[in-house]
């Protein structure tokens, strides 16, 4: 959980890590302070969490073999093997599924904002 009360896990997404790289460049060039970069990332954590919660319609369903599951420090981790993922409510009405060897799901409690 970040200092702003939102999880930092989206920083590891493509858009998050790209933002981190861009902030690194700005810090290295002396164009921003590290503290501003932290604030930007704090805002990123919040906005991603809020946007995913409020503005997404898409759903995906998946089926596969639940290989591993654990619940540690309020974080659920599931590793699903031989998983077929199906996106609903997308333009791909052909209902194509994506089959992957392994899916890792990390799920945190969205309600407990404010915790550190």
């Amino acid at each position, binding site marked *: 959980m970040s200092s702003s*009360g939102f999880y930092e896990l989206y*920083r590891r997404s493509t858009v998050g890590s790209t933002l*981190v790289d861009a902030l*690194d460049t700005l810090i290295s060039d002396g164009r921003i302070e590290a503290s501003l970069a*932290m*604030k930007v990332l704090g805002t990123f954590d919040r906005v991603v969490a809020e946007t995913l919660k409020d503005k997404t319609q898409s*759903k995906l369903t998946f089926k596969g073999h639940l290989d591993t599951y654990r619940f540690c420090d309020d974080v659920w981790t599931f590793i699903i093997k031989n998983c077929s993922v199906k996106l609903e409510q997308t333009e791909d009405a052909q209902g194509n599924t994506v089959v992957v060897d392994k899916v890792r799901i990390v799920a945190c409690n969205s309600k407990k904002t404010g915790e*550190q």
Partner: protein
Amino acid sequence: MDGLHQAVNLIESLYSPQPPSNVNEIQQQLQAVQRSDHGLELGYQLLSQDAASTNVQYFGALTLAVQFHTNNSTDRLLDLLKMNLFHLARRSQLFISKSPHYESRIIVIKKLMSNAAQIFFRMNNLDVLTSPSSSHEWNNPLDTFCALVSHSELSWENFDEIFGHVESQTIPYDRLIQLISSSQEFNTLALLFSEVIVEDLVKHQSVKVGTSRLHGVVHEHLYISSISIINYNLQQLVVASRNNSAERPPVADNVLQCVAAWVNYTMMVRTKSHGHMDLSETFELLIQLMCSYDSAHNFPYSENVVAILGDIFGNDPTMLNYELRSTVEGIFLGVQKSGTNNAAGHEWMLQYMNHLVVNEMHEELKELALCIVDFLQISNLDVCNKLFTTISNNDPHNLDQYIKVLLQMTNFTLVPVLEEFFSVRMVDFWLDLCDGYNNLVRETLKPDTPALATNLFSQVVQIYLPKIQLSVKQRICQEGEDETLVHEFDDFRNAVLDLIESMWAVLGNEKLTDILIVSIGQLTPTSEDELFQIEAMSFCLEKLLVDMNLNESPVVCGTLDANQAFIDNVLLLIQTGCQQKSAANGKEAQLLSCDLVKTGSSLMATIANYIKNDDKRLGTCMDVLFKSLELCANADATDSKIELFITRCITKMCEVSRKELSSYLPTVLAIQESMMQQRSNVSDYTKQKFTCCVGYFIQDCIREGPEKQAHYLAKVIGAIRDEILNSANNRDHVLCLLLCISELASALVVSPDVLEDAPSTQLAHSDEYWATDPYQLRSTTLDLMESVLTQYGNDAEFVERSCLIMGSHLATAEPGPHFLAYSMQELIGFLLKRNEACEPTVALPYLVYLLELVVHRYASALAATDFDYLFGEFFLGIHRGAIASDPDLTQLMITFVSSVLETRPALVVHGNHWTSFILPDFVRALGVKERFTIAAVTKFWTKVVNNKRFSRADEVTVRAQVCELGPQLIAHTVQAILHAQRSDLACYSDFLRALVARYPLQSRQWLVQALPELAAHQLQANQVFVEKLFVTRGSRAASNAVLEWWMACNGLPPLTGAST
């Protein structure tokens, strides 16, 4: 700046509705003064101008905030505090005395309050407190505020003395109440200040360090004063509402906002160890306010309190103690699981619901539903235990009543999603209850529990079936609501599906699947409503049957047999959908027709295994499906969608019933042939899938020998070839036809089950036959592709499709006989020919994909010299320059070598290119900047240093080479890390970890040698890096070691906290 007058003019210009063109310049000028040493003086002067506009005064307050943020000195902080408090108290006194423009000045007061809150936070920060110059303690801003505002002789001259007196003064409860009772404005300001402080405290969470003491101070001081004021106000509201329920005093909004802010803060701070901030008395008063209403059905507080309670139940329900939760339970449900009932409270609930329903206040009704169901979710497990187990002994009558209320709530009489939200939210409740029941230990169940559970969940099914009918969607569309509600309804339907699936574990086939089948079968639909009933039941049934193997469920099959009208009704869904899909029937009918066809065709496909057992029934179904498909003409999006649903269903039916439908082959062939023509208006998807269906039938002819297969295949391939040659210039059509060949080839792949069952002589005969290939199918197809690629050779889609067709036989692990089983020579011949003529950026990725398949399949037949030849042709020949300059192609080459290293490493490591090109070039590739190439090259090196597929000879060769290359390898890697982006570091750390593990002695030496040359000024960091790398084992720990070294060398901060 010359003076105050000029500053005032600039501020007025800045905030004027039509700002001047140089507004940016003005802003910069003012900001410079705000930040300067004169800032404090400017702020004081602006705030002292009683006659100045609100903008000017607000700017004064803002200037104090800027001074606070730009100056960290403790002495300066005290000056700021005094100045801010003085002006806050003065402005507040003017507000209370209702001086001119007093109402508009509230914005200035609020800013000064926020400034005071910020100063309060900093003064109670651990760092400030431990600084030697700190001698002031300020524990309770609210008490100080009240004391200052009530001071009759407040002036800047005597402020030091007054502040010294009130700074640490605690105002007794009676005096506090006396003060806020003295004037409504005083009361409003006290509430506002308390609200501003706690709201800012929640935002202040971004400061990680030192907040611990602050929360402690708030708990010991501010909390006591604030809750006293809040509770006093709530009591006054309760008394007022008893006397005249409809009236809502003006201060009510301030009180409720302040309560909401405190609830929010308490919720946040509860996880920290500062003792328990009990708001029980506040909640008691809130609940009383919630339930107040008059005979004219005015509910002055209900909406606000429901919102506050909803927030609590949704986030931290244990904020309400057990007694309060029981009270709420009595109010919401009129019955408690245990204890007495709260008839009066529940009467409010019924009246309030009625009020919302009658006045069509759907949003408020939704809020209430959210609040109630969130509340019910809290005690779900408790309900489950009390209902079904012997763990607690409760009054059975009470429990019956409780369940009755829950069912009534679920069966709310309005339209779900559009008008009511209870049934929508209750899905989660029932799902949890059902899961809870399924997880109960069977020994703890009461004797009558199974019957009770069956009865209860059967009722839930009966309630939800009409709620998810398409008539609701129809109503939503008729109301002209936006699409969000339609999506919400679809989500609701899907949530009910999950519930039905969970309830199946309780009800089983007998009480659920069979009943749905019987109910569908018994209906003779004469109206739209009955059709919707069938759709809703079919929708649920499909979910239950999709994971069921009907061949192993004789009872379900028996039920299906006994209800002959079942299939007819499912077909009716498809037929009706197809008839209503025309745009002339309106958007609403189109939307519903899509759902009807989707449900019908999905269910049909799901029970394909059952349908195939009866030829007559199968024939009827196929006739209806074909006729429905005939009605589709790709006229619009709905039409295309429906065509797609039907095509999917037909494909599934043909796949499952290929044997039973074999007599259809001539008909289907004729249809497929007509579809292939350019003028056909069916979609490309249908053309491809129909060809796939033809393929299934032909594949089934395997029992009759490959000769018959070849006969039909020649017809299909011939028809496609003719069509391609006739319309060679129509790119999309030709591509679609190539896709058809690809589908045909996939359908002809023999499944492992058939391979297992078929006699080996039959398979051998087929293999032999296809090797001879009397109909020249392989060469015809190859020639066809060559001809197409002559024209479209640099079109990526064509090359991709051709490679897929060529490799269709290679894709399976255990290939059976196949008409396109190209030999290695044929495949390599095709690849080499295409390689010479292709544009590498467009075609090479697909060619290399096929090459990978070939090498993988024929690895044992290849020698290192063959690999050298292929590698030279594809990567070092005419495309060498393009590959070197294009990172995607570089990645392609590296990935190809890695894949061979995973399949048969000897092919690579004993070849000439290994030492002459691959090793030296791939060392240099470590310094690339593109992420995908970095990932590929580090994976390659990881595979080189640690490869379980190495033979002893490979291992010896590679080990010697790595030892020789080591210093260079490490130097390039470390240099690449140093200049890499943070997000790329993980790729390198995996490789370093593998290297350190496999070459521990050498790699330490290489690192110690390389690091000082690259980062000479970071000796300490270098040393720590090496030490950490050699003691860590996990991937994350190695990544952290690399990251720390990288941050130290680049002077960058850690941008993540504790990673999740």
